[in-house]
């Protein structure tokens, strides 16, 4: 569900901190440095990185601008190879049977079984292409606000980690407590009260 879809989900963030130096080049450098790299021909199961909003399958931040109006617009891409468990099992049993016959034993140790499984996953992940998941981002730098177009927990966590690494800025996810704590309408006394409030029972 991207920014341009007919139905969207949005997780809102406050960006804590400011970029020192030239804003556009610092952000572009961060996007370039942590842009997604292809894992289709390497034995890696999952990867994530920034990609371009307009061309998410071939990111190139040198040629594509990440600015629309006064906003930074780009995407997070998470590529994952989904190897069906049944395929892993098929290769695993075949390999284990072969190994038992070769060594003339009835059982394999836990370590040997793990090594076989890891090798099979590496072997299969070279042959199975990664499925890309793309999540759009709209960053209003002047307002310290960022919208992430997904409510998925894993994708949100990936965004928070990658954003901090790329721009050395912290994202504060907005939920009931943080929204109250960051509200400009509350004074110091109100903030103290916030730490002590407990749920209301509307009916006895």
């Amino acid at each position, binding site marked *: 569900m991207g920014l*341009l879809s007919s139905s969207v989900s*949005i997780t809102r963030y406050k960006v804590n901190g400011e970029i020192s130096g030239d804003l556009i080049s610092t952000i572009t450098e961060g996007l370039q440095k942590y842009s997604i790299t292809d894992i289709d021909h390497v034995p890696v199961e999952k990867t994530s990185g920034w990609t371009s909003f307009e061309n998410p399958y071939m990111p190139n931040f040198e040629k594509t601008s990440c600015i*629309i109006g006064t906003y930074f617009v780009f995407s997070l891409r998470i590529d994952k190879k989904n190897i069906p468990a049944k395929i892993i099992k098929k290769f695993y049993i075949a390999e284990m049977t072969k190994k038992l016959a070769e060594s003339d034993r009835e059982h394999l140790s836990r370590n040997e079984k793990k090594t076989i499984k890891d090798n099979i996953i590496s072997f299969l992940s070279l042959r199975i292409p990664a499925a890309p998941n793309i999540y759009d981002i709209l960053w209003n730098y002047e307002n310290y606000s960022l919208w992430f177009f997904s409510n998925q927990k894993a994708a949100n966590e990936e965004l928070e980690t990658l954003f901090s690494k790329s721009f050395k800025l912290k994202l504060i*996810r907005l939920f009931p407590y943080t929204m109250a704590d960051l509200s400009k309408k509350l004074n110091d006394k109100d903030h103290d009260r916030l730490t002590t*409030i407990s749920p*209301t029972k509307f009916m006895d």
Partner: protein
Amino acid sequence: MLDISILYNRYKFLGHEFLTWLWFMIDTDKKYILSLQKDILSFEINNRIVLENSLDNLIENITIKGDDAGLEEAKLSLQKGGVVTECNFSLKAGDYEWKFNIKGESLNISSLKPPETAQIEKKEDIDGIVLEKFYLYEKIITLVEALYDQFIQIRITNKWDKESVPMIKKWILS
């Protein structure tokens, strides 16, 4: 500051109370909601509401959905001590309509359907449509933030226990 996941769980009741308060406001003081943005014509609970009721350490969830579904059963759940945990709203402004869902514990906005925008026919259209979409999403986000700001200001003062809770209780029993 406590760990963020602890704060999330410790204070999710605020989101549930906010949605319950918002339903109360829609029923009793819609003028206030309509006054927050000059062109809003209506703001209503749409076709889905989820309530949670903790009874003797057992959690009961009630979902009411459907375009013609009444809210009587939802009100009954409130009378038994329930709170609203998720709700779908519709907002009309001018000739346009927005529909969206708010989940209480996170205050995340999901299934947000803004009015239709023009289709992208050429690459040059993208910037204009992104800006139009931004404006359409911002309308909902600004409204939800203004409502939550108003709620939290009341919630953390004595006014909540002395005035709001008795009024909400009266509304629940009405």
